[in-house]
Every structure is written in C-alpha cells, then in structure tokens.
C-alpha cells in the first residue's frame, strides 16, 4: 500500500480481500484507497472484496459514489464487492444524499459480508500456487 499512515488496511482472507477503513477519508485519500484496492485485487487474484466502513460516522456523496465505483471496477477485475458495517445514521444519510440501494451490495457486518460472498462466489477455493492453476 502506498499510503503513509494506515487510514485503510487491506488484508487478504482466503480468496477475498478485506479492506477496513479506520478513519474518515477526504476525497484525495478516497481516490488513493480506490486505486490501491483495485490494484490489489489483481495482485491477490481476489474473487471477493469486503469494504468495512464500521468506523465511519460520515459517508458523504463523494465517498458513496466512490464506493459504488469501486464495486463496479472490482467487478470488471473479476471480484464481487460488498460494503459492510454501515451505521444506521450513516445509512440514512447516504440515502438522503441520493444513494439508491441496489447500486452496491451491502451487508450488516464482516461476518454477514463473508457469508454473502460465500453464497455468491462459492466457498473459498483451496489455496494453490498461482503457477499451477490452469488458465
């Protein structure tokens, strides 16, 4: 990750990536997060991405749109994205700001997000050396 202090940690969990946003991100940081995450999907050959925003008490319209963008970009790179941990007041604000449910898969928390991905992309495949995998 090219960011200095850990505003976002991107961890690998099986064939999924778990990105935890620790603090409110400004627009520049948001874009950098998007860039890092999309890059890492390829690097880890991730099939699913979980973005955990439980630490955020504000998600503005730019952040909402970026999250939706990330989901779409990740899809193009072959990974399904789910945003988890949206707080009640944040959820309502996002809707107020014009976010329509359906633009972005969401789940209650990390556990639910994992269950959602398992259901959608199948259970995690056994880890294998990348070179051995038939293409």
């Amino acid at each position, binding site marked *: 990750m090219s960011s200095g202090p850990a505003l976002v940690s991107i961890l690998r969990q099986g064939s999924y990536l778990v990105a935890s946003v620790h603090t409110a991100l400004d627009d520049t940081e948001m874009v950098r997060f998007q860039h890092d995450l999309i890059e890492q999907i390829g690097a880890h050959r991730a099939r699913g991405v979980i973005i955990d925003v439980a630490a955020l008490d504000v998600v503005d319209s730019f952040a909402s749109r970026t999250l939706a963008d990330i989901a779409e970009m990740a899809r193009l790179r072959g990974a399904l994205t789910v*945003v*988890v941990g*949206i*707080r*009640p*007041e944040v*959820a*309502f604000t*996002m*809707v*107020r700001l014009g*976010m*329509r*449910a*359906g633009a*972005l898969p*969401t*789940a*209650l*928390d990390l556990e*639910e997000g994992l269950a*959602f991905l398992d259901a959608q992309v199948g259970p995690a495949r056994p880890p294998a050396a990348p070179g051995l995998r038939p293409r």
Partner: protein
Amino acid sequence: MREDNRSDDARTDEPGHADRDQIKLLPQLVAHLREHRTKLRQEWAVRIQDAHLLLAMTAQEISAETTSVYDNYVEVLETGSVGALQHYARDLSERIIPRGVETHEVVGIVLLLRDVLARSLFEKYQGDFPLLNRVLDAYEPAANRIANTVAVSFVDERERVIRQQQDAIRELSTPVLPVRERLLILPIIGVLDSDRAKQLTEQLLAGIRTHRAKVVVIDITGAPDVDETVANHLVQTVDASRLMGASVIITGLSPKIAQTLVTIGVDLSKMNTIGDLQGGLEEAERLLGYAAPPENGATPS
C-alpha cells in the same frame, strides 16, 4: 373616621414617591378586600356564572375554588410574592385541566376577579380622585402580575401534560418486534407524520443492528393515510435498511394508500410489497431460508 385619617396621610405624601405610596396603600387595600370578602366573592361568583365560565364544574366546586383563589389573590397582593401563587396555580391547573377547563376560562375568571375588586375600590375611593389614582397605581401592577402568573402557570401545566402524552405516544407508537431469529416486525398504527416517520427510521435502523436482522416486515395496515413526504421517507428507510444488509417487505397497504402513492408518483418499483401481514411473514421466512409452511405446518428446515 380612621379611614379619613388614612386618606389624609396618603394625600400629604409627595406625589412621585410611588414606592412609598404602594407600601402604604397596599395594606389598606388588603384590609378592605379582607373585610368585604364574602360580598366580593359572591359578586365574583355571579359574574362567573353570567359569563358562562367554568361550565364543566359544579357550583360547589366553583365555590370552593373561587374561595381559595380569592384568598390567594389577596395574599399575593399583600406579600407581593408570586411564588406561592405559582404553586397554587399549578395545583389548580393540575386539578382542572383533566376536567376540560379551557385557557380562556381560567384567564377569564382571574380577570373578572380583578375587575370586581377594582370596582369595589372605585366605590370606596370615588370621592377622592387623586387618592383613587394612587390606589389604582398600587393595585393594577400587582393584579396584572397575578393574572399573568395564573395564565402562564395554566398554559405551562397544559404544555407539560401535552408533552408527557406525546412522549407516551412516541414510546408506544413504533415498537420494533423481533419475531424470529433475524426477522423483525414493525407494525405501524395511527397517523404517520414526518416526526413519527423519522423516529420510525431511527428505531428500525437501530433495531436492525441490535437484532442483526436480515428481513424486516413493515406492516402499515393500521395507518390510515400517508402523504408524499412520509411516502418518500418510507422509501428512503427501505433503502437505508438495505444498505445495512436487511431487506424490507411492506405489507398491508390499504387501497387508499396504494392509490395515493401511485397518484403522487412515489417510485415504489423497488419496494417489496405483499398484501397482508400473513403473506409478508411467509415471504420473510422464504427469504430467511425457512421452509414455506404447507397446510400441515411442517417444521422449518
């Protein structure tokens, strides 16, 4: 004789020393009002009847209340402390508000008392206009302060009652009920205004989080009507719930509400609506992966 002396005393005072005047005159007034207590009180009671006030109360109750109001009134004139009156007015309001006594009646009777007493003062001092003026100077501010205090206490008490009731209604109005693991029901009963809709959203979203709900059934069978603001708010609530990972089923849309929603053009295409609560629960169980209960009521898988 004594009275003449006192009038003389008062007259020899420098005009403009209103404070000293009041100090001297008020005890005089109070003595006068105490002396003629029975007569003035009766006069007042007659005028209350003539004005058709306090119809909700019986004659005995009126008599009891007016006696104590009269005594308190005179006492406040004497001591100048409105604290005791405030306390009394609050008690009085607590007693009479449940009986349906209106604000205008309370203000009316206090003003009538003020007038009755003022008349009696006119009568007493009619021979001496400068003195009458000073007497009224002393009497009027005190009397107005009393009228003010009583009215304010009454309104305060009423507002307190209203607030209390609002709180009670608010607590009752939007229960979030967990029926099964991960399934919430939100029955909405009564008029849904924007305040209540906002509160409903808060409670629902908080409920989704605490109960880790996956499916929410909002049953609006008991809601008589919705307007555009509330409908849009409902749509937003559904969207927000989905952002928190719960899907919402709306049940019990009355024909009237259905027509309203379509007529005002609220976009409900993404809303999952089902006719009645029973159907909603079946759908919810299907979403949660329980077996749809057939006629014999099989156990959930």
